[in-house]
């Protein structure tokens, strides 16, 4: 009697199990379908506007003549300087934390603080950049002010990625270096860092791909929404792709929405190629070890 009951319930229990798997699968599918819909919508709207003119024209009041030249150059300038600032700072901090830092309260504070910084909303970095770089250091609304702000924003990502790369280098490599009489820095410079380098670079590229899409902090520091020139020095004013997109999306005319979609396609291509590069580097690293 009880055996029959048990079998009956097992059926029902299994049925619940099946329903549950399907529900979980559907949830995952929803996320993927949404990604597909989003990409499809952007391609449908923007494909018609993709042309050489889009890349070589400055923005304009007329959708047919408008392009992203200033935004494209601005993005390259800003991301380039963001890399130049955040790379040495981030890698330096990571080397310190992994190789030099004693286990004391200061090290713990630095580590916890990095984790907290990763969770600070990007717009707050914009407020910091506005007050420190634009006002206090009088850099104005320049490429340098924007790059410095974004460098602080991605610093936690760079540090954490570099720490992981350095930590992955086997202890024996360090022992070998120190054993033949090299100083700690010589060991790092000639043995540890070259091995960790691909991993560090991967993290750096991923961090820069985050910087490339950031909008809010640059609007905060006063990057302009209408710029008809390309920067020539780091102290020039600038605009970037996401700000140009923001500007076009917030206009009511459909022509500008198509332009925004086309600019989004360019931005996504840049992002995907950076990610692909990072994956290639990561795979090469795996082969070496």
């Amino acid at each position, binding site marked *: 009697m009880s055996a029959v009951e048990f079998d009956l319930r097992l059926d029902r*229990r*299994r049925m*619940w*199990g099946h329903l549950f798997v399907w*529900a*979980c*699968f559907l*949830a*995952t599918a*929803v*996320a*993927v379908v949404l*990604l597909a*819909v*989003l990409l499809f919508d952007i391609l449908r709207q923007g494909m018609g506007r993709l042309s050489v003119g889009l890349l070589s024209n400055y923005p304009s009041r007329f959708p047919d003549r408008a392009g992203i030249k200033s935004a494209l150059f601005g993005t390259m300038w800003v991301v380039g300087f963001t890399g130049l600032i955040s790379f040495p700072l981030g*890698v*330096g*901090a990571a*080397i*310190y*934390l992994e190789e*030099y*830092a004693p286990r004391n309260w200061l090290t713990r*504070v630095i580590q916890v*603080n990095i*984790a*907290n*910084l990763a*969770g*600070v*909303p*990007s*717009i*707050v*970095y*914009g*407020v*910091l950049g*506005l*007050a*420190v770089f634009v006002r206090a250091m009088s850099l104005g609304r320049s490429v340098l002010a924007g790059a410095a702000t974004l460098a*602080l924003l991605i610093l*936690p990502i760079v*540090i954490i990625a570099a720490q992981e790369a350095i930590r992955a280098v086997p202890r024996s490599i360090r022992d070998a270096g120190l054993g033949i009489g090299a*100083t700690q*820095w010589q060991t790092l410079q000639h043995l540890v860092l070259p091995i960790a380098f691909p991993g560090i670079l991967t993290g750096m590229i991923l961090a820069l*791909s985050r910087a490339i*899409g950031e*909008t*809010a902090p640059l609007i*905060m520091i006063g990057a302009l929404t209408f710029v008809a020139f390309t920067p020539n020095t780091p102290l020039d004013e600038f605009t970037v792709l*996401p700000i140009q*997109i*923001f500007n076009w999306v*917030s206009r009511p005319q459909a022509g500008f*929405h198509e332009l925004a979609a086309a600019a*989004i396609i360019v931005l*996504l291509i840049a*992002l995907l190629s950076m*990610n692909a590069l990072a994956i290639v580097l990561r795979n090469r690293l795996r082969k070496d070890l």
Partner: protein
Amino acid sequence: MPGATTTDITLLRGRRWRERVIRAVLLGCGLVSILTTAGIVLVLVWESFGFFREVSVWEFLTGTEWTPLFKPPHFGVLPLVAGSLLVAVGASIIALPVGLASAIYLAEYAPGRTRKILKPLLEILAGIPTVVYGYFALTFITPLFRLVFPGTGVFNAASAAIVVGIMIIPMVTSLSEDALRAVPRHLREASYGLGATKYETVTRVVVPASLSGIIASFILAISRALGETMAVTLAAGATPKLTLNPLESIQTMTAYIVQVSLGDTPFGTIEYKTIFAVGLLLFSITLAMNIASRFVLARFREVYE
């Protein structure tokens, strides 16, 4: 060879000096992150101090009207907080169940191959810039909404909440999946050994065992939703309002900060200082949530072996 010895000693001394300098420089790099935090806190507190000399903290935190750019100005931040909460709650309703369910699927059920395809797709979803989500909200979701509910405004909290929800799904998924995977195998096997089905094992053993990690991921995702800026600026509008109706235009704390910095508010005025007061509030809320998530993780973690 006395000469050689002297050279060796100078060489060693030089090397030691170099080591010290390098160490100091590297420590300096590490301290930049501390300086960043100190900079954020100092800037926000200092500029807000100027604001609170003219507007009382009480009026700021409990006022129900936010009209700093009109005459007479009102500086009650509640409508902005309500706007941010409306978007964050809406986003959570979408992202928390979907994110957790897909984490369970990926960690417990998905065959290796499916997982290999799905994980990078979710990473792409996580890497899409927020301004793109704003575009999607304004040109795709809002028109859909207006077909279904004709009374919906061009700017409304609902479509902002939906895209912010989509945006934070990957975060919930990836952090929750890590938590589920951290549950040791022998707990699952013990459950099977007692005759439980896979469904019962997952829902009554694995999920409860990783609850601290799951809740921590929820808190982090909500904090991310509160700090989201571009999508809500584009989709939710610029009308600070105390409302629970998601089909109306509202304004969030972040969108207000953007609105002011896009305008030509003169430096040093009370209107200009509002962005620091609102920024301080936003920073405090998100910081508290990040600390809370770490606390949940540390305090309620089930420790195995």
